[in-house]
């Protein structure tokens, strides 16, 4: 069991191996389909991107948030299926220097290649554990692109001991998903 703290250095990320279990403390940025599309579109067009995305930890998550007394509170925040973001994953990782992607279900080989090249890992959160993860959010630091809707907006969250997270794709090309897939018994 390892404790990780943001900002993550490339060296720290490259030391992680598929199969490691970690807990994360620091800042994470949520983003799913719409946020990926807009971030890439804006960056390609030279439009400004909200602060916080650069060198961040990207959390594939569309949380439930409520506003209480002018402040946002996280009600539920589990990971969403990462493979939907496969297409823009490599560009996101390289362009914004993403050090870790948190999600569920894993990502494509192309994303794995980008992770190897840029020094990034895929951390699998336990799907559906939305209350536990919400409880690890100590502060909602920002809400960007709120016009995309609650699930698709870019939320900047301060987390304390978020986890357990499993290093499921590492920066050396190791992938737990590949290991499992290769050994699947497809008997009927």
């Amino acid at each position, binding site marked *: 069991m390892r404790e990780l703290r943001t900002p993550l250095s490339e060296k720290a990320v490259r030391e992680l191996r598929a199969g490691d279990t970690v807990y994360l403390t620091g800042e994470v940025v949520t983003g799913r389909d719409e946020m990926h599309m807009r971030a890439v579109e804006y960056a390609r067009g030279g439009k400004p991107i909200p602060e916080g995305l650069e060198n961040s930890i990207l959390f594939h998550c569309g949380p*439930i948030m409520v506003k209480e007394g002018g402040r946002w509170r996280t009600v539920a925040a589990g990971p*969403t*299926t990462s493979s939907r973001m496969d297409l823009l994953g490599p560009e996101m990782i390289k362009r914004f220097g993403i050090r870790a992607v948190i999600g*569920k279900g894993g990502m494509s080989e192309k994303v794995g290649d980008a992770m190897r090249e840029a020094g990034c890992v895929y951390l699998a959160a336990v*799907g*559906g554990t*939305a*209350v536990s993860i919400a409880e690890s959010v100590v502060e909602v630091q920002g809400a960007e692109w709120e016009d995309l809707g609650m699930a698709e907006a870019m939320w900047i969250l301060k987390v304390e001991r978020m986890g357990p997270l499993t290093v499921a794709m590492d920066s050396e090309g190791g992938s737990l998903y590949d290991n499992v897939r290769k050994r699947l*018994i*497809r008997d009927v």
Partner: protein
Amino acid sequence: MIKLPEPIDRVVANLLKAANTKLPPDIGWALEAAAGWESDPLARTQLGAIMDNVKKAEVLGRPMCQDTGIPTFYVKGRFDASIRNDIIKGIRAATETVPLRPNTVDPLTRKNLGDNLGEGMPSIHYIPTDDNFLEIAVLIKGAGSENMTRSAMLNPSDGIEGIKRFIVDSVLDAGGRPCPPGVIGVGIGGTADECVAMSKRALMSPLDRENGDPVLKEMEEDLFVKLNGSGLGPMGLGGSTTVLGVKIKAACCHTASLPVAVSIGCWATRRAVARITETGIEYEQGADL
């Protein structure tokens, strides 16, 4: 229409709250049993985190998963056409009070109206009977599992082997995306559309309710063993817990067809049922429909 002890919109809001915050007891027992036999350490970590989350959600009264999904309703017994408006009212209220994440969007513009409603939403299946009760059941599925729904029109000569092949491949190709270990709902036969509807309706059935058809029961048990022996495991990260149960429904079909459909329920297969009579309301978390 029977005389109601409570307005339907309030019953619907109660159902959505219960389904989202409390895991059906049969699924909780299945998870506990799985944690007992699972030997893979990583799989045990996943199951432990799931059960921990379930407890927190129930104690705090919060949705166990942030994807509060899209509800499918089943309305059975005696009811009026106005029941659709009552259900809509209940969803609008629950979206605010539970709260539910606003999930419905226009399919092309992707515009979100913020109330979990819109054209064609929610999906309601009507089963009118002459009985003196009204049963409202709801199944909640998030996109992770719903996106893995598969159906096929097999050749009659593919037979039971072909059906099993299709089910096993559908579940294993979905991998970790639908948040295993969950429930596998299967429809066999019917028309193409009815087959998919049956596969989803099968997910409403409690895991401890036995299939009355001996052939289907044997298929369920066989698939349960095969899928759990596949090695996919919780969240697709490996282990011997890939499914908590398999539920099959069948209907007659065209002599030249063999339709089969698979609806995957994630570990949080959320259901709730209200059985309303003139004297009161009983709430449960599963029903054979």
